[in-house]
């Protein structure tokens, strides 16, 4: 029988606990990675450390709150290490970062214990001990390096007890993660103006934080005549060595001691319940003195919460309902039109129209709001990747600069959830296969460090995510050869492909299995999975590559999954929905002259020959021409332009995407279906897929 761990947490709180913990773990991790990256830049490192430190501090409190002492202690030790790094006693070496990252991983395991209630068997005390050893060694070295210690030989006992108000202030600082130091200090006997030295010391300490209490008080120091030792309780976010260094700079100091000061917590806690929150700024100090110390963290205490956490499922349910509402509104508009056609304009129909447009406005706004609520910055996902890149790079013995751009780009959380895996594939590939080894790069005259760039941006109603490396690029010749060897294509067919088309073969299923690909092109681990996942989202992926200069993978994704802006068209007796994001222009065929080029229909449009793809033939619908005026919908994917020949344009419509039954598999050129306002089912055209399939058919001399 295994032990069952007990935690002070309800089952329904676990979700929130996990979210909180993950957030802080990620902050710690990204802080560490940034620290490693800009190790030489103290200012930036300070900021990274501050973030990591705060995350650790909060995490410690969470762990303690759920009754997970091992997790709390380990976090505490990590927090101390962050402190040591911030104070500069420890250098952020790769080895140290490794250890700390491993410690963060251990915290993840400990986090999971809360869910599984099973002990993970990790020897936390040993890990803590190890970290502490390292810390104390570092501290010793740093103290020794700083110069001779001025020992304090006097009485170490506290001079006076803290007043209620002082206790509260001290406690507030402790809650923010600051430290309390009890400082004893004496001026050299016979020094010139010893009291001035004490005042100087007191001011120096103020630069580090806030003095909770001191004896003698500052005003008294100016008036006193005989020398007395100075006693100070200092609240600061720095560690003892920094305090000591500050004091050492003052001349004519006989000796000092800096000891941690422990608050009588229970007393303070009781007090805080009855007392009003205390302002943390020292009243009555001259301006330059209050301005000098670093601003203490603001205490939010009574601040009102403006946000609410909401279950994702509830949000999804809300979105579905809004979707139904949108369909309903469209249906209502149709009923209105029918009524008007039947009964003409009258008070009733006019009232209905007004009602309808009012309702429409509200539905539009509601939809907008709900969509906004589902939007999250892509940083949520991107923040996981620096660690991935780092680990892959270390395993592959490559040096990589990882650049992230457009983290603030927002998109539907459902989309974010589903593109995680494809991006992991692409990034891993970029480092592992895309980038050359350092030696090769140097030999080629490239920068020794490779660069992998991950960026996100809004582009014409889509979100475009690119993964770019400056590595070796993809050789179309190798891809052709591999495709032929894999039996995907005949040699003739492969030879007919241009470089761009050949490169795109890496997305074909079966292309990438086994070692074959790595050996040939150095690419393609699971790229078909990437394409399938992206397509499932209604998006598409392309690659651009130049040999010797690198590759760029471009994922184009809809902002949201649930609702799509489309153009409805008649094809034979069927209705198809073409996503507006893929459409460049719609033309009436009658206005254009159709020419034949090598037996294929084209029109000359914007100075180029635009191949026409008759959708009715392509989809093999036998019925005669459908309703409407024959038209051409010009669609684009990447550089490809194709004119889709349809029987009629119905108009723009906002549709709710419905999942096809699992019975219906992957249909070329179709990404899903929807239910229209009149209750009919329409299929949604997958523009990239359709263009791809059409081009393939053209190569085989069939349709175009």
């Amino acid at each position, binding site marked *: 029988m295994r032990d069952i761990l007990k935690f002070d947490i309800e089952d329904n709180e676990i979700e929130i606990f996990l979210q909180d913990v993950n957030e802080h773990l990620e902050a710690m991790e990204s802080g560490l990675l940034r620290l490693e990256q800009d190790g030489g830049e103290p200012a930036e490192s300070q900021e990274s450390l501050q973030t990591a430190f705060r995350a650790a501090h909060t995490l410690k409190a969470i762990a303690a709150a759920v009754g997970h002492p091992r997790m709390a202690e380990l976090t505490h030790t990590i927090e101390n290490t962050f402190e040591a790094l911030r104070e500069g006693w420890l250098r952020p070496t790769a080895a140290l970062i490794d250890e700390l990252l491993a410690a963060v991983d251990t915290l993840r395991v400990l986090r999971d214990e809360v869910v599984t209630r099973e002990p993970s068997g990790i020897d936390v005390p040993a890990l803590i001990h190890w970290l502490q050893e390292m810390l104390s060694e570092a501290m010793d070295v740093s103290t020794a390096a700083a110069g001779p210690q001025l020992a304090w030989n006097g009485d170490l006992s506290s001079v006076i007890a803290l007043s209620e108000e002082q206790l509260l202030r001290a406690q507030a600082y402790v809650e923010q993660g600051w430290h309390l130091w009890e400082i004893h200090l004496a001026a050299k006997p016979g020094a010139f103006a010893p009291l001035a030295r004490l005042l100087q010391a007191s001011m120096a300490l103020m630069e580090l934080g806030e003095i909770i209490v001191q004896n003698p008080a500052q005003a008294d120091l100016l008036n006193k005549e005989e020398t007395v030792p100075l006693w100070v309780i200092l609240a600061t976010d720095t560690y003892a060595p920094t305090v000591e260094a500050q004091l050492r700079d003052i001349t004519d100091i006989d000796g000092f001691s800096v000891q941690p000061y422990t608050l009588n917590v229970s007393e303070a806690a009781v007090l805080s319940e009855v007392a009003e929150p205390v302002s943390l700024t020292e009243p009555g100090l001259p301006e330059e003195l209050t301005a000098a110390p670093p601003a203490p963290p603001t205490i939010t205490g009574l601040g009102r919460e403006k946000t609410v956490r909401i279950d994702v499922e509830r949000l999804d349910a809300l979105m579905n309902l809004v979707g139904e509402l949108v369909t309903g509104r469209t249906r209502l508009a149709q009923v209105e039109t029918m009524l008007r056609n039947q009964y003409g304009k009258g008070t009733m129909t006019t009232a209905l129209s007004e009602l309808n447009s009012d309702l429409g406005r509200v539905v539009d706004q509601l939809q907008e709001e709900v969509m906004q609520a589902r939007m999250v910055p892509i940083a949520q996902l991107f923040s996981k990747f620096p660690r991935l890149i780092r680990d892959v790079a270390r395993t592959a013995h490559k040096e990589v600069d990882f650049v992230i751009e457009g983290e603030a780009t927002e998109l539907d959380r459902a989309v974010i959830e589903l593109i995680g895996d494809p991006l992991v594939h692409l990034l891993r590939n970029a480092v592992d296969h895309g980038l050359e080894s350092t030696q090769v790069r140097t030999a080629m005259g490239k920068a020794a460090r490779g660069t992998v760039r991950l960026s996100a941006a809004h582009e014409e109603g889509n979100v475009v995510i690119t993964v770019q490396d400056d590595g070796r690029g993809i050789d179309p010749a190798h891809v052709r050869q591999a495709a032929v060897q894999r039996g995907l294509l005949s040699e003739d067919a492969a030879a007919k492909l241009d470089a761009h088309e050949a490169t795109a073969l890496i997305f074909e299923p079966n292309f990438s299995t086994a070692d074959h690909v790595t050996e040939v092109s150095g690419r393609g681990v699971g790229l078909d999975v990437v394409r399938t996942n992206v397509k499932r989202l209604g998006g598409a992926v392309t690659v651009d590559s130049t040999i010797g200069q690198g590759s760029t993978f471009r994922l184009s994704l809809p902002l949201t999954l649930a609702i799509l802006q489309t153009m409805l068209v008649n094809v034979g007796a069927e209705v198809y929905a073409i996503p507006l994001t893929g459409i460049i222009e719609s033309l009436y065929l009658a206005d254009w002259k159709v020419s034949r080029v090598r037996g294929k229909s084209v029109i000359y449009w914007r100075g180029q020959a635009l191949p026409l793809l008759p959708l009715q033939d392509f989809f093999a619908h036998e019925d005669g021409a459908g309703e409407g005026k024959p038209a051409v919908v010009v669609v684009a994917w990447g550089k490809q332009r194709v004119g889709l020949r349809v029987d009629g344009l119905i108009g723009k419509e906002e549709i709710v995407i419905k999942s096809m*039954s699992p*019975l219906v598999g*992957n249909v070329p050129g179709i990404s899903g279906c929807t*239910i229209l306002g009149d*209750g009919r089912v*329409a*299929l949604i055209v997958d523009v990239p897929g359709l263009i791809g399939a059409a081009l393939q058919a053209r190569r085989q001399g069939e349709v175009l």
Partner: protein
Amino acid sequence: MDRQFVIFTLADESFGVAIALVERIIELRSVARVPFAPDFFHGVVNLDDRVLPVLDLRKRFGFPAQPPTRETRLLVVAVAGVRVGMRVDRVTQVLTVSDADIEPLPPIVATVHSHFITGIAKVARTAPESEGMAQAEERRLIILLNLRKVLSTDEKAALQGWDYTLADVPEWAEDAAPEMLTDLKV
């Protein structure tokens, strides 16, 4: 033991499926055809704002196609969690059949692949229902279908040129397809 079957006709032959598998019987409605689908895949329809795939059972069984009539119906069945509509010529009745009247394999099967069939029910002809059929027999035969086989497909011919994945339907767990499909083994 008695079992209940929904009886329907295709090209004047009677078929039965276990009533437990039948969710609803609806009239034929506007169908969106799916390109590149096998011949017997009729298309998709809107059922309560959800998209329901529909099979044309006539084509599935190789009967000649026939335009819809006023009696054409969609039998909405759910097998192992997958809902499918089956287009049939006519739904005639719900019939209670005793196990004793079910024979495992038909002596002569004229039209339907034998692996679609779990058994043949021999039932007494009911008077009002017999119009248009030969009066000579005292009992009539009802072909009991194995829906699992009907809905899955390994027929290559039907799949050519399309990545059609009826076969990808989640494991047809035997226990999920109740009585008729499993109990009737000989």
